């Protein structure tokens, strides 16, 4: 049982490269490289080229545009609210699912997956129907002078919805594989619930948690569909970075659109790098846990 999954993977890798003749390997590798260059690298370079088409000065001047700044601010705000709430929810859900048995557990697992299953646009529409002018809660919200749809609050709620499964999904298999023995050992040694959580549970799920946060964060910042529906694309008020890019494209302001796109692309690159590091660490932890 010890280390079996890891071993299998290795064997499969070496097995493949040994059995396939060399020209097959070269062709497969070429296809992969052409695909990567054609569909990822070239467009990315094009984005940067277009962004800097007007010169470096223009590029940086874009970031003084109040609408651009507002979009960046709103994107950061949405992420800053969605990510911590996700961590709290994700840890709580993963904890209860993996460490306890209770009726309705499977329903909870299914509920967590809903945002993955539903198209973001539909999610946005649901919020529109709930909170909009014609919506179920619309009149009540208006009576209290609370604006959700076509307001930053709506953006935050839509972002929360689409990012909701990331942390929990990451943690559930990790926590399930680790079991509850260590926590019970901590209790037997006199730890209270909080000490057990902080000193045993958190360190054990640290890398999975960071990974989940990264995924959640990049989705929060990059989300388009759901927020598009509830935002109404009001520049300077409800436009996030992706929405602002779309607005600028429609108005033929390509330089600004591409400049904002480079900012999002940078975020993606940073995410990828951190993700690679964390993924390496967390798969190692998972392998150790199953040993």
């Amino acid at each position, binding site marked *: 049982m010890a280390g079996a999954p890891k071993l299998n993977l290795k064997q499969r890798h070496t097995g493949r490269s040994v059995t396939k003749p060399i020209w097959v390997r070269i062709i497969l590798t070429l296809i992969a490289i052409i695909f990567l260059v054609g569909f990822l690298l070239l467009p990315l370079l094009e984005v940067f080229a277009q962004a800097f088409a007007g010169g470096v000065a223009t590029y940086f001047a874009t970031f003084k545009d109040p609408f651009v700044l507002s979009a960046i601010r709103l994107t950061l705000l949405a992420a800053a609210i969605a990510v911590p709430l996700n961590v709290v929810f994700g840890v709580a859900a993963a904890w209860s699912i993996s460490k306890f048995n209770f009726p309705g557990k499977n329903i909870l697992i299914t509920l967590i997956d809903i945002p993955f299953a539903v198209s973001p646009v539909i999610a946005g529409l649901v919020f529109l129907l709930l909170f909009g002018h014609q919506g179920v809660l619309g009149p009540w919200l208006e009576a209290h002078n609370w604006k959700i749809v076509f307001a930053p609050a709506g953006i935050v709620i839509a972002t929360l919805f689409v990012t909701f499964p990331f942390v929990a999904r990451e943690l559930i298999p990790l926590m399930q594989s680790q079991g509850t*023995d*260590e926590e*019970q*050992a*901590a*209790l*037997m*040694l*006199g*730890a*209270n619930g909080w*000490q057990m959580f902080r*000193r*045993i549970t958190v*360190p*054990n799920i640290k890398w999975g948690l960071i990974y989940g946060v990264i995924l959640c964060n990049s989705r929060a910042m990059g989300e388009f569909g759901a927020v598009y529906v509830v935002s109404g694309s009001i520049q300077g008020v409800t436009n996030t970075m992706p929405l602002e890019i779309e607005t600028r494209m429609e108005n033929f302001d390509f330089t600004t659109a591409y400049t904002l796109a480079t900012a999002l692309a940078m975020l993606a690159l940073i995410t990828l790098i951190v993700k690679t590091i964390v993924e390496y660490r967390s798969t190692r932890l998972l392998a*150790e*846990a199953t*040993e």
Partner: protein
Amino acid sequence: MSIEIQGVSKHIGKFTALDNVDLTVNEGELVALLGPSGSGKTTLLRIIAGLETADQGSIVIDGEQASKRARDRNVGFVFQHYALFRHMSVFENIAFGLRVRPWATRPKNAKIREIVLSLLKLVQLEGLEKRYPSQLSGGQRQRVALARALAIEPKVLLLDEPFGALDARVRQELRRWLRRLHDDLHMTSVFVTHDQEEALEVADRIVVMNHGKIEQIGTPQEVYDHPANPFVYNFLGRVNLFHGRVHNGTVSMGEIKVDSPAPSDQDNVPVVGYVRPHDITIAKSRNGKATIEAKIQHINPVGPIVRVELERLDDRQPIAAEITRDQYYSDSYTVGDLVYVTPTNVGVFLDYDPVI
């Protein structure tokens, strides 16, 4: 501290994991819970520890009702798979129980260091305090788990199959060492095992469990020499079965007759005689005794005793016997020999239990 288990039952869904278990572990005793897989040993141990609650009955530790929460019981628990904290060094693992104490009773860092180092010495792991659990061998992990449990100075130590995952040699060494440790530290200990040899060797008393019930409680000698029922007979080592009938206080199994207070007041009922292999004598001649004739099928002369596999001539049932090396050489048996078998020390039970 003594442990009293009074009428404890535990149901998991519809399944009865423990069925009205009564057991008293005296102060300073080392008691083994012995039984086949699924017999409820772990469940009972976890209830004593407070990791699980009984549906009925109570646990009294040192004359007092055990507190509800596991962490208040001050019981040392060694998990079957050790459950070491994988992200902590050996030192921090052992120090954990001291570090989580309330501020007022928490020892100073220097004191913690002193305690941990002395525990490492006790479990013979000096110099390994900086290692992580993944860098230790099975036996070393086992001893770290033990040191960690001992750090809180428990008066009761519970161990779940402490040597289950180790190889035979290490097991033997560690169990003797555990016995000494138990005596030196004046603890009351309960350990779970499904290895009868282990239980017989180290325990003061053995609790034989089956299907959530206690089959017998007694010293190793009592349970081995006087098993209370066929299950215990079967579970504590190999045993030969002789079918017969009881009549007027005498059990007849073929030619063999054994005086036996009948297992019940019934007469002329089928019974089974249980005989351990070393309670079977074999001889080359009949010597005028009532015997069973058998043929030698196989001889295994390895080790201090010689195992002889026989087949009865009358009903072709196998018989396992163990004889001394001396007898083996002086009588010079070979496969195919006809021998005369006499059981000594027969345990007689009514023939209705289809155990094992």
